[in-house]
């Protein structure tokens, strides 16, 4: 069952001189199994919005329905809502408090009133899901772990409640590139394997682009765009205007088009952009060795961009499998007259 948000408006400190509307008249439906990316500049209301989905904040106007139940009504058990919708806060490692990792992860299931056997089972399951060795870390103090591990424990603490919907607020904030990649990969796997609905808040386009099935773009408390990444990233200038960018791939396409290269519309992952460039150059993307060849003929500027493409390729590889075939066909369609296009590309 989906999550429905109807005319949600939230005002902080209403009636006081400090009153501020964080969300204004938001309407949307989130279907089961979706991977939603919530994008927005700092202060756009993303965090306020997701805190409504499990009843931590009450709307000033409007309602939120989870599985058809209006969670804003009195008498609705908030514990039931929080069982269904798990929320991982920004910097969740700061909420750890127990003596051992296992006890901390067990906090949620314990509040749900589960049996000890069930709790133990869930703790182990959750630790495995976040990529931690349960046997190794379960009995150590969470405060002895590294920052990245602490964050995984905190995410496990929410996962152990086995929510149907998992919300992550800036899960990669403050992590180094490696920690960032591995957390994103963990989230991708969770979504693929458990078929959970995942809602991820971020302001990083490159984090969200390869993962999300739908993007919600917020600005000043309003929903300004909603659609697949492909649809949303077409609006590069609108996104720039509200302080956001587009992923590297989409940005590269846009700049090439500005420079007169007839790049096909709607590309955003780096592998599909690379393939499109190769198609324009009249070369079929085949092997790595081939990929280097045409670059050498182009200007040094284009060369460095393509190096970037290759370097980032490995990190985006997992998502490329599904999308590259689709990209290839779209690239083939739009690049009628490859020889002509390639000449233009070379001029640019």
């Amino acid at each position, binding site marked *: 069952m989906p999550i429905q948000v109807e005319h949600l408006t939230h005002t902080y400190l209403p009636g006081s001189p400090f009153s501020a509307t964080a969300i204004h008249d938001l309407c949307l439906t989130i279907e089961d199994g979706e991977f939603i990316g919530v994008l927005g500049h700092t202060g756009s209301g993303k965090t306020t919005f997701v805190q409504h989905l499990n009843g*931590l904040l009450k709307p000033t106007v409007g309602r939120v329905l989870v599985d058809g139940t209006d969670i804003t009504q009195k008498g609705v058990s908030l514990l039931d809502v929080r069982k269904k919708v798990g929320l991982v806060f920004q910097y969740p490692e*700061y*909420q750890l408090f127990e003596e051992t990792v296992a006890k901390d992860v067990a906090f*949620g299931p314990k509040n749900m009133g589960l049996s000890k056997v069930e709790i133990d089972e869930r703790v182990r399951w959750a630790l495995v899901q976040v990529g931690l060795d349960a046997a190794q870390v379960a009995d150590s103090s969470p405060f002895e772990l590294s920052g990245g591990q602490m964050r995984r424990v905190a995410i496990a*603490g929410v996962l152990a409640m086995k929510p149907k919907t998992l919300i992550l607020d800036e899960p990669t904030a403050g992590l180094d590139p490696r920690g960032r990649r591995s957390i994103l990969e963990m989230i991708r796997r969770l979504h693929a394997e458990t078929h959970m609905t995942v809602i991820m808040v971020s302001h990083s386009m490159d984090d969200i682009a390869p993962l999300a099935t739908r993007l919600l773009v917020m600005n000043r408390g309003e929903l300004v765009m909603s659609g697949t990444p492909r649809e949303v990233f077409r609006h590069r200038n609108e996104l720039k205007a509200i302080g956001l960018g587009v992923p590297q791939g989409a940005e590269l396409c846009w700049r090439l088009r500005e420079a007169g290269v007839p790049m096909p519309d709607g590309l955003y992952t780096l592998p599909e952009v690379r393939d499109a460039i190769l198609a324009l150059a009249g070369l079929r993307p085949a092997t790595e060795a081939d990929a280097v060849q045409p670059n050498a003929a182009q200007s040094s500027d284009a060369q460095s961009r393509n190096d970037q493409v290759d370097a980032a390729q490995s990190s985006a590889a997992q998502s490329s499998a599904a999308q590259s075939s689709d990209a290839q066909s779209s690239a083939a369609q739009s690049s009628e007259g490859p020889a002509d296009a390639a000449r233009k590309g070379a001029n640019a």
Partner: protein
Amino acid sequence: MLKDITLGQYLPGNTVVHRLDPRTKILLTTAYIVLIFLVTSPLWYVVPALYVALAARLAGLSFGQMLKSVKPLRLLLILTFVLNLFFSGGTTVWVRWGIVNITREGVMLAIHFSMRLIFLVVGTSILTLTTSPVALSDGIEILLKPLKVFHFPAHELAMMMTIALRFIPTLIEETDKIMKAQQARGADFESGNLIARAKAMVPLLVPLFVSAFRRAGELAMAMEARCYHGGEGRTRLRVLRFTADDAKAILVTVAALALVVAGQKLL
């Protein structure tokens, strides 16, 4: 929800009272407290009343704002009034009802002590309403400086006050966030008996302490990185200076004190 609490009651402004040197204001407030304790009969509260009214008017404070400071004290006030009314003894009995005696002396005493409390709170609140916490701790630091002879850590005390005040909003925000994070994991802070509620605080207090210590460590490091080494040889951004207004304020206060002392003796 915790954000709704307003901390410190400083109301920014640019009146004569706001601009007074914080040292003057602290000293005058002390003098004002002495003044109140010098008043021996309810009638003479006219002097502190006029004094407070003048200060409030100059500071641009409304009657309602002044009264607000008394509100938290209403229970204590009622208790003071009732206890003095019934249990102070005396000879001139006005009402006799069973074992309850209300005497003339009792009524006078009840009024006297209630007035004393009200004037104490209202008068001193002018200080906190018109002086920013930073200026206040600056003033305290300088006033306590002579005590250094006795190894009294005046600078450290003032610095601690400033830092504590600075971090109150940060900690409130942090508490709010951790509370929500634990609620998202099914924590319940609002129901159950006293023991259950105390136990429910553990998931809130542990992370809060951890982060407070972390912040303290970071702050200490940041201060050291900027060469902080205590109060020795430290110069100030805002140098406090006595002005003509300070002199006038002191004159008015001394006059009020003299009036109460001399007036009560002579009349």
